[in-house]
């Protein structure tokens, strides 16, 4: 990995549970509960995990839509809590999951795309218009599409518009929050290819959030696996798929249905039970309630994220036993 | 759990009562016309006026007046009418009793007919009754209650002589007389409500019928009727409960007109009279009691809602 662009350390986000006037103690939804991550320049970091484990919250904190309860996000070495939020837009952008609610239905497509340019007074009106046309073409639409309204486009096209908006200011990081989950398979591939092409061209980094593991694998360089507000494993994608260290990663991969009937008989790990609530996560290792390899220690002691011999990180007592090596990355 | 929910809701009501009564108090002072002068008439000399104003507490500042009113109101004393000297709480409560019976009857009529109409129209889409339900729900909101009141009065009292044209008999004194006296005014009052309820119930039913759980019910082999009764009504009635809560407030206001036409000595008439007469003590009491009733009704709808919908937990 080359030099880090974004570094997250000890990031937490607790949401207060909406509650009455005189509750003895306030309860919290621990959406994100101590995250450490880095994203390198021009790199794509995939972030996977089950629904509600805090992926979107992490993404929102990175782009400044949400203030962390604790911890820091630093971008190019600057602590974001000290940076002017307005300026951040030039550096970081976001692509959203729902292609329907992410475009203002009452704005023309060209206005949607030009919005970041206008906000930052980037160029004259005419220059902005030219840039919009360019962007439209870049994402595979035609410049006359700019005169239409979002409702006239299909989901895939809308997602392209969202992408055009995100790259308008040539940011160095784009947080993609499940950009293809709502799309049909055939369209997913188009969008993924587009994202990949853009990265090659612009050198932009992605934080690619998804729960569809195939797509993550396709687009990412490294992948972080989250469980209940915490990262349990970070590894390069090849390593992750070849040799998952954390039992959760292992079961996650094994649960993915494979489009090949010949693989039917393979051994699969089927997890029992549901994801516990982020309101009161289990003690010790959060995964211990569902872990097929659970040990006594898991119920009491929370494992920390440790680097393993092959350079990947995992938070599991089994790994610590095997590796006995301290993490270097914060 | 439930107790805490109750106390929480009640605590929410308190600031609202303060605000509302204070708003009313401030408004009242904006109303031109001096009650002291109105009472004294030609006998108004400066000394008399000053004396009467002091007696009525009108010579003090708004805040002091409000404070005085509030402290007595808190111990259940709403003062006395400027004009007749009768106790405000007695007057207001007896009038409220009448209006409450009237409005409740109107609501019951509106609710029973409105929901029935909606349900029947849902069971037989496209039938004449469905068309009728549609007609009712659009026409009903368009006919002003006083016009309807005049029409009903002209037909059923004056021409046919079936029902009395004026007055009110309490349910507790004479149930049959009550029905006779309350029928026309409550229909005049409730027509809008019936239209609204039909409309809301109908669209709620339609909406509910598009949900997966209704499809699930059908897929189990339930008939339309069974589906409506076992799955549709309870879900569709939830928004209607809210409508009923709002209706109570609206109808309470509408009595202002309908009571005048039918000469029913209810709170609406009292409200108009006390505004016209500048009987501020009475007006304040009237508004307070109306607001309290409306808040209590809203409170009750909340509770009914939470009883109907298990998802609302009292937390």
């Amino acid at each position, binding site marked *: 990995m080359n030099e880090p662009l974004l570094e997250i350390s000890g990031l937490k986000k607790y949401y207060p549970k909406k509650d009455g006037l005189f509750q003895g103690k306030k309860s919290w939804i621990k959406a994100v509960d101590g995250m450490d991550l880095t994203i390198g320049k021009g790199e794509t970091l995939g972030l996977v995990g089950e629904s509600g484990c805090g992926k979107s919250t992490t993404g929102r904190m990175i782009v400044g839509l949400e203030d962390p309860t604790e911890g820091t996000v630093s971008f190019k070495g600057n602590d974001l809590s000290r940076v002017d939020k307005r300026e951040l837009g030039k550096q970081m952008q976001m692509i959203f999951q729902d292609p329907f609610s992410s475009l203002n239905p009452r704005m023309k497509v060209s206005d949607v795309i030009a919005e970041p340019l206008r906000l930052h007074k980037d160029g004259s009106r005419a220059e902005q218009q030219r840039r919009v046309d360019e962007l439209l073409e870049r994402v595979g639409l035609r410049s006359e599409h700019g005169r239409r309204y979002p409702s006239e486009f299909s989901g895939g096209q809308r997602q392209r518009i969202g992408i055009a908006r995100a790259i308008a200011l040539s940011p160095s990081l784009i947080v993609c929050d499940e950009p293809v989950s709502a799309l049909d398979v055939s369209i997913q591939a188009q969008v993924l290819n587009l994202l990949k092409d853009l990265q090659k061209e612009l050198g932009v980094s992605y934080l690619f959030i998804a729960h569809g593991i195939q797509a993550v694998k396709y687009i990412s360089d490294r992948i972080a696996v989250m469980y209940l507000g915490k990262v349990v494993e970070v590894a390069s994608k090849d390593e992750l798929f070849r040799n998952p260290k954390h039992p959760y990663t292992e079961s996650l991969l094994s649960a993915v249905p494979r489009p090949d009937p010949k693989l039917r008989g393979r051994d699969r790990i089927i997890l029992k039970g549901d994801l516990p609530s982020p309101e009161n996560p289990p003690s010790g290792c959060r995964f211990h309630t569902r872990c097929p390899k659970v040990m006594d220690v898991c119920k009491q002691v929370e494992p920390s994220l440790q680097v393993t011999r092959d350079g990947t990180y995992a938070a599991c007592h089994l790994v610590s036993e095997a590796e006995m090596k301290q993490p270097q990355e914060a | 759990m439930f107790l805490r929910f109750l106390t929480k809701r009640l605590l929410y009501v308190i600031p609202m009562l303060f605000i509302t009564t204070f708003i009313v108090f401030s408004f009242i002072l904006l109303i031109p016309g001096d009650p002291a002068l109105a009472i004294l*008439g030609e*006998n*108004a000399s400066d000394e008399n006026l000053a004396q009467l104003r002091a007696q009525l507490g009108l010579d003090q500042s708004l805040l002091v007046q409000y404070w005085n009113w509030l402290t007595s109101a808190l111990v259940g004393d709403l003062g006395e009418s400027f004009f*007749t000297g009768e106790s405000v709480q007695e007057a207001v409560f007896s009038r409220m009793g009448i209006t409450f019976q009237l409005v409740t009857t109107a609501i019951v009529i509106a609710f029973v007919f409105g929901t029935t109409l909606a349900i029947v129209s849902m069971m037989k889409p496209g039938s004449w009754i469905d068309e009728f339900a549609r007609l009712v729900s659009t026409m009903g909101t368009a006919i002003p209650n006083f016009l309807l009141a005049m029409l009903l009065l002209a037909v059923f*009292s*004056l021409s046919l002589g079936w029902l009395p044209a004026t007055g009110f008999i309490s349910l507790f004194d004479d149930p049959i007389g009550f029905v006779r006296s309350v029928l026309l005014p409550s229909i005049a009052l409730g027509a809008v409500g019936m239209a609204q309820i039909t409309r809301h119930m109908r669209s709620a039913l339609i909406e509910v019928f598009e949900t997966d759980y209704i499809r699930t019910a059908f897929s189990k082999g339930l008939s339309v009727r069974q589906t409506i009764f076992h799955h549709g009504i309870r879900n569709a009635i939830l928004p209607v409960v809210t409508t009923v809560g709002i209706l109570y407030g609206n109808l309470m206001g509408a009595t202002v007109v309908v009571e*005048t036409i039918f*000469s029913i*000595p209810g709170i609406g008439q009292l409200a108009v009279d006390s505004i*016209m007469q500048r009987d501020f003590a009475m007006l304040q009491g009237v508004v307070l009691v109306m607001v309290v009733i409306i808040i209590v009704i809203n409170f009750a709808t909340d509770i009914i809602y939470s009883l109907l919908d298990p998802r609302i937990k009292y937390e």
Partner: protein
Amino acid sequence: SNDERVGATSEVKEHEKVIVAYSTDLNTFDPVFGSAGSDHSLLYPLYDTLVSFDEDLLPQPGLAEEWEYLNDTTLELRLRDGVTFHDGSVMDGEAVAFNLERATSEESYISDLNAVESVEVVNDLTVRLHLQYPDSSIVLALADRAGMMVSQEAIEQNPDQIQRAGVGAGPYELVAWETGEKLTYRKFDDYWNEGEPKAEILEIQVMPNQMTRMNALQTGEIDFATSLPAGEITSLSDEEKFTIVEGSAVPVNMLYLNIASAPLDQKAVRLALQHGIDRAALNEAIHYGQGEGAYQPFPSSYWVYNDELNNLYDPDYARAVLEEADLVGTVVTIAHYPEAYDERVIDILRHQLAEIGIVVNGQAMEIQAGISAYFDEKSVPSFMSRWTGRPDPQMTMTMLYHSTSYYNTGSYSTEEIESLLAEAAGTIDNPERRAEIYDEINRIGLTEEAIFIPLTFQPDIVAMSTDVKGYEPNMLGKPKFQMLYKEP
């Protein structure tokens, strides 16, 4: 409690109960407080007055069987024997003196007895009123609030109680007062006048809206309705179920003028108003001819009516006066009540006065707002309202013309008028002379000064179901419901 007593009244047979619909409620049963002219009809059943009056508003014996002026300033009353109040206490000289002193006290709202200096109890049945100055209206003033006798015992026990439940010596006792709704009276068994009243129960329902009164009568919910709308009533007159009685009474619809304020400080404008309004046409349009146009504050059947003052309408003159003063186009703002009737009048006035060059600007105000604005704040120059009338014409004349009167908002009068008023006050025993003096005052006050603008006398229309008997209209326009009864 009230409820029990109300309950008891329901056992009374149908024909022993008379139900009346009346337009307003009262504020208090204490006659010395309260000021509304509409209260009397609700007070009469409870309180007999010292003096009564006949249908022509001439004094008749009441609780005082006879009276006599011992001199210009001493009036002696001889009381009826054997009269008791509802609470059993005796109605005697002491009681009369107590009541009259109370009526003239500081706190009392009554001003009719201002002339009274002291009250002397000669014996149980004789009382003397000593006056500061002669006042020809005193006798009939005793037919008004001032003459309503309240039980001294009751007042002394609890003066506040009287406000809500009066105790008098009248034919009826109060059973219940449901404010704004109805008043229930029951026959007083020890009433001095044997055989009266004839009905057991008198119930007066408050129905402010004239249409409601019509409706209730039509459906038989009430037996008797007052102040019904002219015109509308014709639709009931065909039916045999109803008796309709039309009378004329002293209350007069008029424009009060604040002569101290512009533009009414211009005599030309006032005269133009006075002569520019065709009362006959007005009466025709709003009363369908059933009332009477007013060019003076007295209706034609009243004993002080002046035959000569019967038509001031002269549009040419009105216009000429305005033109001469260069006031054509003057805007006159008239406050009025926000009621259909009043608006109709204003509409007609607007048209009539437009002809002569006056622009009418109607300004609707609810009753209390209008009274405040005109009489107290004096923020509107003119007010269309009704003079409710008084038993004695002297009271009316003084209140409308005297510069110190509350009703003369601009405090404007002439010396001549005021000296004539004083002379009339002193003319105790000569009604013809009094009438002449009033003629003169009206001539000056209306045709030369235009101190106020009388408009119309509304017809006093009541209707009752045919089995109701005993109704006698009076010119005061305040019916005495105690005389009503039903034939079994």
